[in-house]
């Protein structure tokens, strides 16, 4: 394994403006302009996160819901520009963040392959070259020329995964997508991800399935309340996470003011 850096976060802070009372219309703006300051508060989804992923590494990201895992993935994919800190990403990225985000229900599978492929950064020629492989992997048969709104959810996910994974990126971002589909297809997706790994590509993998984290990842990172709590050997990080879950479960059963009021 080379030690070339693939992804590097340096003191990354992502602050969101949480709108308590959303002003979506001009009238509300005028009405609320005097109480402007009361209508939002800032909260930090990521607090000074720094880490480094080497080329060819498969890193599992674990943490509770809302801990900031997806924010890390979205910053890596370039969806969010962090509030402060610097992010360096070397190579092309396929964001398998939410599959089928660019699908349009009225278009056929084939039309969606082109549109989605272009959205993920392929050229038209590259998409057409991969088209038959995508259709074969998705096991859609004749349905490929029907509008995707007629697809079952399994077919929909299969097509979405097939397109996204054919992009052939240097960095693959996998966010909790393998919970869908039947066991057979899940295995097929996993095989493809491991194939990516064998090819020396970098993989950022978010999952709540601790077995696959332990089994496949080279390293794991535990994120809690927007902070990087621990990184290292997957088994050790998973153990720490489970301990943390027990603590949290224990704390929430005790009715006290544990959450600090700002």
């Amino acid at each position, binding site marked *: 394994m080379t030690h070339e850096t693939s992804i590097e976060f340096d003191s990354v802070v992502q602050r969101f403006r949480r709108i308590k009372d959303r002003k979506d219309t*001009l009238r509300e703006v005028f009405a609320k302009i005097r109480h402007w300051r009361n209508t939002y508060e800032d909260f930090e989804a990521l607090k000074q996160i720094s880490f480094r992923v080497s080329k060819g590494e498969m890193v599992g990201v674990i943490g509770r819901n809302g801990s900031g895992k997806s924010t890390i993935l979205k910053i890596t994919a370039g969806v969010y520009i962090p509030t402060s800190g610097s992010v360096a990403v070397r190579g092309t990225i396929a964001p398998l963040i*939410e599959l089928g985000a*660019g699908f349009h229900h009225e*278009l056929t599978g084939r039309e969606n392959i082109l549109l989605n492929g272009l959205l993920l950064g392929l050229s038209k020629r590259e998409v057409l070259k991969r088209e038959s492989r995508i259709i074969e992997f998705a096991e859609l048969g004749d349905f490929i020329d029907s509008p995707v709104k007629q697809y079952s959810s399994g077919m929909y996910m299969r097509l979405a995964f097939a397109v996204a994974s054919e992009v052939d990126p240097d960095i693959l971002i996998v966010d909790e997508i393998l919970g869908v589909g039947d066991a057979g297809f899940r295995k097929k997706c996993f095989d493809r991800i491991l194939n990516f790994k064998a090819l020396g590509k970098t993989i950022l993998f978010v999952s709540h399935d601790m077995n696959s984290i332990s089994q496949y990842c080279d390293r794991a990172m535990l994120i809690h309340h927007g902070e990087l709590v621990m990184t290292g050997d997957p088994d050790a990080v998973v153990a720490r996470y489970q301990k943390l879950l027990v603590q949290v479960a224990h704390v929430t059963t005790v009715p006290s003011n544990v959450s600090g009021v700002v």
Partner: protein
Amino acid sequence: MAVFVRELLRDTYRYRELIWALAMKELRVRYKRSVLGFLWALLNPALLMIVLTLVFGTIMRFAIPHYSIFLLSMLLPWTFFSQCLAYSVESIVSNGELIKKVRVAKLVFPTAAVVSNAINFVLSLIPLMILIAIMRFPIHWTWIYLPIPTIALFLFTLGTAFFFATINVFYRDVSHIVQIILSAWFYFSPVIYSLDFIPTKYRWLFHLNPMLYVLNGFRLSVYYGLLPTARSAGMSMACGIGALALGFGIFRRYQNSFVYYV
């Protein structure tokens, strides 16, 4: 200034296939499930012309010969402009789910809305040509001037589209206001009438309307067989470039925040 002109050109070129695919998607979706499909792009303006010719040719007779050609020479470009705005004002908000999940150059969405309507505009010229042939309206050599106002109109529309698409992300009222602005703007622009109808002392007011300059070249060259003065032609281009610089400038400035508001 030079920086963002370069950025606009570079990104439009880089994402040309995606812009085209999104524009085709919009047209496909618009005409999907209608028996006549794409024919509607031709039929719509054709039917409109029949109605207008009947109304203004037989019922309300204006003292303008070939009034339908007089009207359509400006009404078709106006329709392009107003349709573009109606579609593009929502273009960022309606693609919000995508923007939140995939890193994509946001300028593709308003641009695609304008391109899809440009295709409609070009198609609407076919029934106009047929009407001109039926009415034995003289074909003026000045038609060769048409590319100039077309470019000015395209730039002006694109700039206005960027502007409204940006504002609508932050204040959704804009999508409602646009309809009112468009109808007021329509009567303020000499589309159904001639500027000669306006008393001289008020005419300066109408000269403040950039659309006057943008549309002027169409009627002059198609209907009157004249070329605009160099000053008027220069004004139309200046309005186009000015609107694009302003609209894209604002769009560019706020585009990284879109993801938090859609």
